[in-house]
């Protein structure tokens, strides 16, 4: 494994790319821009305000701005910037950046697979794919070329999926599922019988574990910062899976310790003591008890219980944003690349939220987004009082 380099050697390989990503930090929508945006009455006003931000160029073509257009333009812009970074990166950083895209690839592959089973047009599907998770177009097209029977799916898996960067996660998943199903090798069965969200959650779990292992092998600041971020993310997934499984078949006592438990990543602060407690949780109350044992999650849980305005998702988003901003603030490590992509994602969510609110005239809800790099962010003010 190539080292990332410390304080004195990091810049030799990655200084330029790191400086690039830090330059892109300027493109984040500022506090005052957010303020102006929230004051808008119509989408035209919003567009006018956005033309002065970094998104101006990408929004020029659209005559009228809808939240969907804005989202698409912003995601495309992020993808272009990311590709630029990727093309400048070398050895461990390049791999690191690829790891970031794997998450989106998982999403795209799942969409392609499901779309294929439903018999949709490949061009339509490709158009819907997330630009960050694109892989070779020939590979994407070949996904639909396979026959829709057991043999076709086995071929699909052996010829196409295995070669994609996320193939390893698929093979892990299939292995584990076939152990459970009993009859091995029936890939279509596994793919069809398991709900797509569960496959996705499993793949995400393998992805998180793999990413975590990769980051800790890099060592140095990168390991310190990224492992924390990924641990928190893994815990978020575990808590979310548990919370959202209530009221679904996954919460059946027989499924709890097998199927649901398999979705908990084997990294993170909750693992292993917390996750085994989560596996036993049968309702919100018992989940709350587990969360209350971990100070970091107790507050998020309190949000869920007390406040209807802000959900647990908001609390998690907020904490993620704080972590990512902090990751952005130290130098000479890879965490800032991950943080950049995640913060941009949050920003896109914010902008879509604001424009949706403006469009639907929900004036009182418009401020419920999470400001980025803001001096007024709640976690900064808490720190200031301390």
């Amino acid at each position, binding site marked *: 494994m190539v080292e990332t380099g410390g304080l004195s050697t990091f*810049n030799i390989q990655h*200084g330029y790319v790191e400086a*690039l990503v830090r*330059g892109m930090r300027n493109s984040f929508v500022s506090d005052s821009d957010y303020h102006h945006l929230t004051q808008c009455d119509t989408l035209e006003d919003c567009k006018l305000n956005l033309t002065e931000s970094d998104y101006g160029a990408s929004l020029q073509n659209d005559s009228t701005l809808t939240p969907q257009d804005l989202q698409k333009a912003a995601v495309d812009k992020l993808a272009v910037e990311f590709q630029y970074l990727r093309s400048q990166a070398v050895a461990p950083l390049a791999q690191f950046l690829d790891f970031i895209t794997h998450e989106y690839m998982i999403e795209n592959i799942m969409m392609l697979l499901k779309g294929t089973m439903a018999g949709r047009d490949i061009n339509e599907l490709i158009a819907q794919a997330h630009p960050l998770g694109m892989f070779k177009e020939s590979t994407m097209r070949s996904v639909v070329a396979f026959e829709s029977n057991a043999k076709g799916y086995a071929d699909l898996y052996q010829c196409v999926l295995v070669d994609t960067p996320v193939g390893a996660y698929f093979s892990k998943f299939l292995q584990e599922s076939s152990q459970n199903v009993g009859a091995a090798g029936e890939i279509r069965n596994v793919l069809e019988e398991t709900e797509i969200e569960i496959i996705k959650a499993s793949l995400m779990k393998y992805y998180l574990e793999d990413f975590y292992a990769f980051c800790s092998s890099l060592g140095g600041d990168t390991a310190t910062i990224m492992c924390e971020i990924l641990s928190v993310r893994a815990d978020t997934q575990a808590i979310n899976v548990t919370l959202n499984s209530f009221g679904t078949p996954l919460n059946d006592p027989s499924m709890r310790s097998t199927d649901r438990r398999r979705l908990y990543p084997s990294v993170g602060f909750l693992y292993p003591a917390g996750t085994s407690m989560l596996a036993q949780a049968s309702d919100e109350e018992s989940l709350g008890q587990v969360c209350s044992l971990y100070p970091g999650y107790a507050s998020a849980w309190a949000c869920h219980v007390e406040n209807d305005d802000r959900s647990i998702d908001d609390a998690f988003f907020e904490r993620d944003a704080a972590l990512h901003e902090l990751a952005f603030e130290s130098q000479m490590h890879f965490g800032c690349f991950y943080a950049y992509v995640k913060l941009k994602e949050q920003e896109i969510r914010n902008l879509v939220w604001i424009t949706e609110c403006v469009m639907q005239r929900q004036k009182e809800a418009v401020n419920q987004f999470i400001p980025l790099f803001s001096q007024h962010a709640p976690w900064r003010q808490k720190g200031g009082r301390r």
Partner: protein
Amino acid sequence: MSSDASGCQSAYCNQGWSEVLTHMSPYGWGSFGIAFGLGLSVVGAAWGIWLTGSSLVGAAVKAPRIRSKNLISVIFCEATAIYGVIMAIVLNGLMKKPEDSSYVDGVFSEGWDYNTWYFAGFGVFCSGLSVGLTNVASGISVGVAGSSCALADAQDPTLFVKILIVEIFASALGIFGIIVGIIQSNSSQFPDKLIN
């Protein structure tokens, strides 16, 4: 040179490091001192410029205004190389060729001041080393600070001056080296003629 009293096991006194080092000529020591002094200073400077430069060009992609202002970081790094050059010239000035009358057939005559000669040789070597090593440290340190300076300036122009002060302190490390080096070498005059 009094080769009789050498006590070497081999003919040219080159069997193992201990023989090489104990029998090296003070002129050799002095020249190595100059070489290390200049060489390490340039390594430090180059390293610093690399660290600063890569960040500077990267940050200048999105914030072109920083590109000329932050050249000052590069100049700070360059300064360490200049310290090395100055030191090399000073040290070189201390090394004098002995007068023709002081040796015969490559062997110093009676009355050659061996003590001063060896003192000067080690002195020049070590002052070169002091300068070189401090300059490597200073160069890297200025480089790291300069890299951060470029990035910080790109985000927030008001930070530039503040980080520049940090950089100046890093640069001062090299000056400590050169001061000590000069003092060290001051008394290290190579003898050029016989006593009397």
